[in-house]
């Protein structure tokens, strides 16, 4: 993942093996909806710059393309523009000459609503309902591109392809497919490359990975000689972050690894044979969307009082009752749907919530009191009421005024700001004439060229 660092030496060793291109995945939905909603990358700018600088210099020196997918943490248009700015800084700093293709994956809401009305959008498993108003209220909606726009950019002479949201695999499969490689091998090699050295036996820190496609098989190895690929470690990577270990769905078809054979070439290198790619009848693009869920303020606290812990559920219930009452007094016009207070109880079921099979508590619990509302001002106000009520609600067994929670911080309430949710899990079937991914070309130094 771009921004997580890789040893410079590994990159140089990889480049010495004469690759046809460098690819790097730069984003995912893994860390939640915030990167996509805000356009702000969760990795630091300094870390992104460091990685980009090495990759750009390496690609230009070796006269091979650099392909970056899901730019800026999530591949939204803002994420892409931010990354583009960093790349341009580096280009002028290193005085590089190159052509960059920038592929945007942000989607037009009116077009999506037309597609929805025409029955050309299909919900995926466990998807929330999708209506025109869901589309309207979304902050960012992206389509996840496959290899097609990347191949087009490469065919148009781009040295750097900066892509918005893209399937992890398309970053690495595009150039081999463009050059006529076996599609099963290309897509499967791409699946292993997308997480860098994650497919080695033991990976102490992020590192590079190298694939060589040879007809119906491919060879996989890490340029860093300290890392070993084994048949099991390579096969195991097909499990990672995938619902089905045998099938990976792309816009144009499905990678099927059911019959793949993993063999050791030596103790560090693995050969994979027999992967298949089946073209789908319908070309579909996955959609990802985010919406604003509200604003939050939280309070971090701890409870050590054995009397409270003996009947913690009752304690929390009476907190909730008194919070409700107090808020009704303060805001008589507010409905109970306008705000939410959630207690997270660490030391009982903070990690698994309702799915915790053993909700047992020890001698203390950690508490996060989480207040959510439609404005930050209200969320903070609700949090302060919730904190104060929890602090002083009466505890059965004690007589007199109690103080129930240990607050580790003065100025107790932490403002979380706006919070977001993923709200779309669907695929759209574009017409051949629809242009979901708009590509712009830039020549450096300077001179902005044509728009496609």
């Amino acid at each position: 993942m771009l921004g997580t660092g890789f040893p410079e030496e590994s990159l140089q060793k990889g480049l010495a093996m004469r690759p046809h291109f460098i690819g790097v995945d730069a984003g995912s939905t893994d860390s939640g909806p915030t990167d996509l909603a805000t356009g702000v990358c969760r990795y630091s700018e300094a870390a992104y710059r460091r990685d980009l600088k090495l990759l750009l210099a390496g690609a230009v020196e070796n006269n091979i393309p650099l392909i970056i997918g899901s730019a800026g943490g999530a591949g939204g248009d803002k994420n892409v523009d931010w990354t583009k700015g960093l790349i341009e800084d580096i280009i002028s700093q290193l005085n590089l000459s190159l052509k960059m293709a920038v592929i945007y994956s942000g989607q037009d809401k009116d077009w999506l609503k037309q597609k929805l009305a025409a029955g050309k959008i299909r919900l995926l498993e466990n998807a929330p309902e999708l209506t025109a108003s869901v589309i309207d209220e979304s902050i960012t909606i992206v389509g996840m591109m496959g290899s097609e726009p990347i191949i087009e950019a490469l065919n148009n002479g781009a040295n750097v392809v900066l892509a918005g949201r893209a399937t992890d695999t398309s970053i690495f499969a595009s150039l081999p497919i463009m050059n006529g490689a076996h599609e099963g091998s290309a897509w499967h090699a791409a699946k292993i490359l997308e997480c860098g050295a994650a497919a080695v036996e033991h990976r102490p820190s992020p590192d590079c990975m190298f694939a060589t496609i040879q007809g119906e098989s491919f060879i996989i190895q890490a340029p860093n000689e300290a890392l070993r690929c084994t048949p099991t470690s390579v096969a195991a990577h097909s499990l990672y972050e995938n619902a089905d270990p045998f099938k990976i769905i792309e816009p144009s078809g499905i990678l099927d690894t059911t019959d793949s054979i993993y063999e050791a070439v030596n103790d560090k290198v693995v050969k994979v044979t027999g992967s298949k790619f089946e073209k789908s009848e319908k070309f579909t693009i996955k959609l990802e969307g985010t919406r604003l869920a509200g604003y939050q303020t939280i309070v971090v606290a701890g409870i050590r009082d054995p009397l409270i812990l003996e009947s913690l559920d009752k304690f929390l219930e009476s907190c909730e009752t008194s919070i409700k009452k107090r808020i009704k007094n303060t805001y008589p016009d507010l409905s109970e749907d306008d705000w939410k207070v959630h207690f997270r109880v660490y030391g009982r079921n903070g990690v698994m919530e309702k799915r915790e099979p053993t909700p047992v508590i020890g001698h203390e619990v950690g508490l996060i009191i989480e207040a959510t509302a439609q404005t930050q001002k209200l969320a903070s106000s609700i949090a302060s009421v919730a904190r104060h009520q929890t602090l002083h609600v009466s505890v059965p067994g004690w007589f007199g005024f109690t103080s129930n929670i240990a607050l580790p911080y003065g100025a107790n309430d932490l403002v979380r700001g706006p919070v977001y949710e993923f709200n779309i899990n669907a695929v759209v079937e574009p017409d051949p004439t629809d242009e979901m991914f708009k590509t712009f070309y830039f020549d450096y130094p300077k001179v902005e060229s044509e728009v496609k």
Partner: protein
Amino acid sequence: MAKLREVCRLIRSKNAGPFELTFDIMFAEEKTYLEAKTLNYINRELFAQIYGVRLEDVKLYAYDPAISFKVTIPRLIVSGALGDSDVYGCQQFAPLANLEIPTGSIA
């Protein structure tokens, strides 16, 4: 009886996209993996029960190339949405680690 973690090199959970949670139960040795397949103690009912999901929502794959089982279930709350407690889904495997398993012929 043994614990599942004693026959595995890794048990992990992670998001498979924001709407699904996936578990990898990666055995240390082929022998114990094949035994688990024969004894069928990693099954859909187990996950339906531990994670409180409908049986038809549990997808299970025996993945021979990595002597592993993969199980995928819906998330209770979408990753990062209000009320979610594990954005990456990475600590949800914990109840599996100490699961008592039949040891069959090894016992």
